[in-house]
């Protein structure tokens, strides 16, 4: 498999009056062709900002990508002129957002919003675009597409709108779809439908998927590989199996332990990660997770642990990763 997108040492900072917020600080990851990559982390960890940086949609000011490279299809997106990045957006990389209701224009019909990018990027005629729009709606499982095209966003339910968003994202045959919390606003029974749909379409058309979420459960079934982010950095990376079965960073372990699970017997007490996420403006020296970490050692206060391999394809940014890994393997066995 060839690498489709490679983010190298990306740094996106926000320059506010109170100081510099290092929202994304030295993040690297790659997406293979046809792969589904999960990007997991809590609010403020930089997962969405890193995706917006790929699209060059970080609001500037105050945001600025101050370093790194984003190699997509052989060219550095950060170096492209504005006119060319617009041709990449929507056409080669499409986005699906958390709130379908606010991402669509309420005063335009679904047809108008679907055909717009077809006419713009693929230079289709009106009738061609219309035919294509009907086909796309069928593809995402919207019944009676001819009639639905004439309707406005408020006439759709949340799940149906998210399907429309996926149809729009697919309309120009992109190579990569970035889905930013695509199911967070949806009900649990609809979430599975939407994720199944995205996964199936990705398989069918060989589109790569970058799924950004705060919910570890959401991507377990769908992601080939998962990146866990904390305080602007990727702190663990591996296959879904590695991450969920053998977590080797205390934060990943903490996240997995803090959610009650329906498939396990009920515990008396939940096991939360203590404390609060750090202030990105005043990050402590050393590891950003240190203050909440049960495994912290003296070294954690002095150096920032680098992301390094602990087994094949499994990386962790923790000095005691090996201990955690062997513990997890013991536990599993």
């Amino acid at each position, binding site marked *: 498999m060839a690498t489709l997108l490679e983010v190298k040492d990306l740094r996106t900072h926000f320059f506010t009056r109170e100081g510099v917020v290092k929202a994304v600080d030295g993040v690297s990851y790659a997406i293979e062709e046809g792969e589904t990559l999960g990007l997991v982390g809590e609010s403020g960890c930089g997962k969405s900002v890193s995706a917006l940086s790929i699209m060059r949609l970080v609001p500037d000011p105050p945001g600025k990508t101050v370093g790194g490279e984003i190699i997509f299809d052989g060219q550095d997106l950060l170096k492209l002129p504005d006119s060319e990045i617009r041709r990449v957006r929507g056409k080669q990389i499409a986005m699906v957002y958390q709130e379908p209701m606010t991402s669509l224009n309420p005063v335009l019909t679904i047809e108008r919003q679907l055909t717009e990018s077809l006419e713009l990027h693929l230079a289709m005629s009106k009738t061609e675009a219309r035919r294509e729009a009907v086909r796309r709606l069928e593809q995402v499982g919207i019944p009676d597409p001819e009639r639905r095209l004439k309707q406005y966003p408020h006439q759709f339910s949340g799940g149906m709108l998210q399907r429309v968003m996926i149809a729009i994202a697919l309309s120009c045959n992109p190579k990569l779809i970035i889905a930013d919390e695509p199911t967070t606003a949806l009900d649990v029974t609809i979430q599975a439908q939407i994720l199944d749909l995205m996964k199936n379409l990705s398989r069918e058309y060989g589109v790569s998927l970058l799924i950004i979420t705060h919910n570890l459960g959401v991507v377990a079934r769908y992601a080939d590989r998962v990146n866990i982010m904390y305080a602007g950095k990727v702190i663990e990376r591996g296959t879904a199996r590695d991450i969920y079965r053998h977590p080797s960073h205390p934060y990943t372990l903490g996240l997995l332990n803090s959610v009650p699970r329906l498939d396990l017997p009920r515990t008396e007490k939940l096991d939360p990660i203590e404390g609060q996420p750090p*202030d990105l403006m005043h990050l402590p020296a050393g590891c950003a997770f240190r203050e909440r970490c049960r495994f912290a050692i003296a070294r954690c206060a002095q150096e920032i642990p680098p992301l390094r391999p602990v087994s094949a394809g499994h990386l962790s940014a923790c000095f005691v990763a090996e201990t955690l890994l062997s513990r997890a393997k013991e536990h599993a066995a």
Partner: protein
Amino acid sequence: MAEQSGSIAVSSGVPIRGLMPGGAIWKHISRFARRKPLGAFGAVIALILIIVAVFAPFIATHDPAATNGALVYAPPGSQLLLGGDQLGRDVFSRLVYGARVSLYAGLLSAFIGASIGMVVGVASVHFGGKTDLIVQRIIDTMMAFPPLILAITIMAALGASLNNVVIALTIAYIPSAARVLRSQALAIKEMDYILAARAIGASHGRIIFRCMIPNCLALYIVLVSVFLGTAIVAEATLSFLGIGVPPDVPSWGGMLNGAAQTYVHLAPWLGVFPGLAIAIVVFAWNLLGDALRDVLDPRLRGTW
């Protein structure tokens, strides 16, 4: 994040309620001046104007009502600082005395009108249902009249005097203030903290005055600054029409509207100076209002 930036903000923010220790006032004022120089500039101008209005007899160089045939249309300069008008009265002294009338009518009607309007708008939203419907129809009816026409009607009924000008303008501002603040109140009403206040058993008064109105203050301050400018001009118009302040009492509006319009080509200073005075007051208040809005917003504490 809040953990750390919070403590910084708290130690240096302006306490909005409670007593400030004596020395702290100066510290806060100097901090305000450093962080909001434009606001401080506005505050200084506003303060100067108030001083001018209060101490008018000491500042004025002439009797503002005294006519002098020799000084009719005297240009600004050595004889009269800002020139003389069509009756030979000193423009500077009239401006100084005019500050009293204009500030009195402008500030009072803008503040009272916006305040009553705010309470009406917010209460109407809070009670909702039929109350809201009836209040809104009354406001619609009042808004069908342009504010000035409304004020003229009221003045005609009350008779010409400075206080009646204030009453008329206040009434004229209530409907638009109520309408504007109603929209804000509608958004606030949907917030959970209003529901939380009801859930602890808070009275209607408490919900309106403690929960809703403090969250309308930003819009209120903007509204007052808009009203202040129009009030000074409206007072002028009423005076010009002969139903406001009597023509011999100096007011900025009266000066601008009177001879200035007819003789502006002969004696431009008749219009320029009162016009400048009005512009400066409105400008200064806008600067001050902008700064106050930020300072009074706890969310912006630590950032200004």
